């Protein structure tokens, strides 16, 4: 979010001084087809993300409770993205500001895990279990497969790909915004995991930043979580502080421009 604010703050500096010479073009709803760009992207094995900490998984040893973070994790095997990019503002043919909406469907393995990779069960605890100092339960098997993403990014584009008219060989895009992830889309039907039990762990939004390099009609993107959380915890077996980074996002993808 702070990245987005920085980018927005830079706009007047980058473009404001040029307003007087009419080099600045705003999006015209009547000619929207000249301001929109469509991309299709793929990533294979370079896509993974973790949600924020949802709750804790607590084990008890010798009267001491050891809480670990519980989070959702997606590991993408392969993902396909369709991304409309709407140029809101253009500066000559050199640069532009665009609103990008990457929509992704991913074949991925989705799980809800603890820091020590125990598979967190959302099944309610019984009074007997609490009396027996059992405060967290494990399930078996992964939670489900496939997840979807929808993002909203504000991007600054320079050089190739920044405007229709730009003829530079290489271009750059830097973006910031939010990406919403939802998964698994299909529960693991080999296990008795109910979707209703895990509803609270199935959707999260994370602030992301993205860097893109345009070469001709191809774009190489790297998207990363901007505001991860470092969770420090201990387990009863190690006693040493452990670190789990949550609210993370990583994806390297390649896209191709459709049309002009």
């Amino acid at each position, binding site marked *: 979010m*702070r*990245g987005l604010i*920085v*980018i927005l703050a*830079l706009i007047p500096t980058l473009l404001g001084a040029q307003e007087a010479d009419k080099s600045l073009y705003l999006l015209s709803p009547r000619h929207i087809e000249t301001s929109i760009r469509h991309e299709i992207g793929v990533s294979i094995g370079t896509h993974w993300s973790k949600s924020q*900490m949802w*709750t*804790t998984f*607590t084990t*008890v040893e010798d*009267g*001491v*409770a*050891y*809480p*670990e*973070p519980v989070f959702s994790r997606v590991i993408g095997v392969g993902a396909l993205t369709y991304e409309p990019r709407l140029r809101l503002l253009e500066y000559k043919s050199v640069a532009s500001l665009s609103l990008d909406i990457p929509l992704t469907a991913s074949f991925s393995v989705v799980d809800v895990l603890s820091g020590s990779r125990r598979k967190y069960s959302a099944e309610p*605890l019984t009074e007997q279990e*609490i*009396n027996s*100092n059992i*405060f967290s339960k494990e399930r078996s098997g992964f939670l489900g497969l496939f997840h979807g993403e929808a993002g909203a990014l504000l991007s600054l584009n*320079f*050089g190739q790909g920044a405007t229709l008219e730009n003829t530079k060989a290489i271009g*750059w895009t*830097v973006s*910031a915004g939010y990406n919403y992830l939802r998964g698994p889309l299909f529960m693991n039907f080999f296990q008795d995991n109910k979707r209703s039990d895990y509803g609270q762990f199935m959707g999260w939004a994370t602030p992301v*930043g993205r*860097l893109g390099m345009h070469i001709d009609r191809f774009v190489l993107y790297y998207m*990363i*979580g*901007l*505001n*991860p*959380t*470092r*969770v*420090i*915890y*201990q387990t*009863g077996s190690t006693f040493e502080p452990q670190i789990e980074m949550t*609210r993370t996002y990583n994806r390297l993808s390649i896209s191709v421009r459709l049309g002009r």
Partner: protein
Amino acid sequence: MNKWITLILVLLIGTTSCVDEIDLRPFELPSLTKSTVRRVEAFELDSALFVATDEGVMLLYGDEQILFDAGSYDELLEIEWTNAEVLYAPTTDIFWVIADSAFLRVGRNTFDLHYDRTNFYAPTKSYFDYALSPDGKLYRLGYYDEVWDPNSGSFFSDYMIGIYEFVGNPNNTWKETQTDLGVNSKFLADPTFVFAENGDLIINTNPVYVVTSFNQSEVVADSISKTGSGFKFRTSYQPYLSETGHMYGLFSEPTFLTPVVAVVDHALNEEEVRLHALDENCEMPSSSQGAVKLLDWQSDQARFFVQVFSSPQTGESEELGYIMTFDLASDQCSLRSLRSHPDLKWSEGINDLDILEDKVYIGTREELMVYDLNTDDVTSYLFNAIENLSVQ
């Protein structure tokens, strides 16, 4: 182009370095709350809670939890919690528990149990009251002598008040200050007292004494006689000095069998003592047992727990009891019900309770439970602790 690349890299490095941090700390499991709870005392203004169970003592300072397990502190097993006086000194974060001759001090790094073996003046042994000074010292009040003037022609004598500061040495529990302040035997009662914020010690009897300074060589005090219809005033229990200058107290010491019937109210001047009868101002539910515990004071408002008796024999009741708020300034009274819950169906199992912020901590025969006043939900404290105590 290089400047743009530099700008992009600076932006990326800058934004990805915004890392939040959460520290999950291991904590001692408050399993002692899964036993019979004997005492629950909350100190609302200071967010402090004291809980005594058959397996030990738990202190809460906000979210911080301190446990004294009776397995390690077996002295705790000897204390009779039900009738003990529990005080809290916010300046030192120390809880004081006074149970007969046992004086327990507990806090974050404090555990001290002292037995008082002082041979006090025999007729007054049971007439003591305790209060903490603003700097957290424990004081006790009692009579140190009885004086009868043979020439007065009266059967009445004067009981002389002594002020005792707790020193807690093995051979010397108290530092005594003998005063020339007396209570005539026709008003003889258990004098109670409080400290005002400025350190004045106010003795709540007839006459009322405002002791502005005292040491073993000199005591400076003003006396305020209580006259008129309030002339019968002798003392009041669990006194509280409100910021509006009223000294409030209970007409009798409440227990779960003998509820409070009235609040005694007098200003620190010669105005009459007023009695605010609870049943005249508050419409008590017919099923209630009356106000059995004073929970707290906020200015001129007192909150009481009004018990409703229910048991497996009487059948499930919709209410466990009520929180009664009584505004002494206007004699306005309101009741807020505590609803029964599948995990706490009957009030019979409630041993004690108190309020801290929007939660009622209920000590039952089986465990400490938490009643959320926002949702009317009741949960086990132990289970709540797992959810709430870990994140620092």
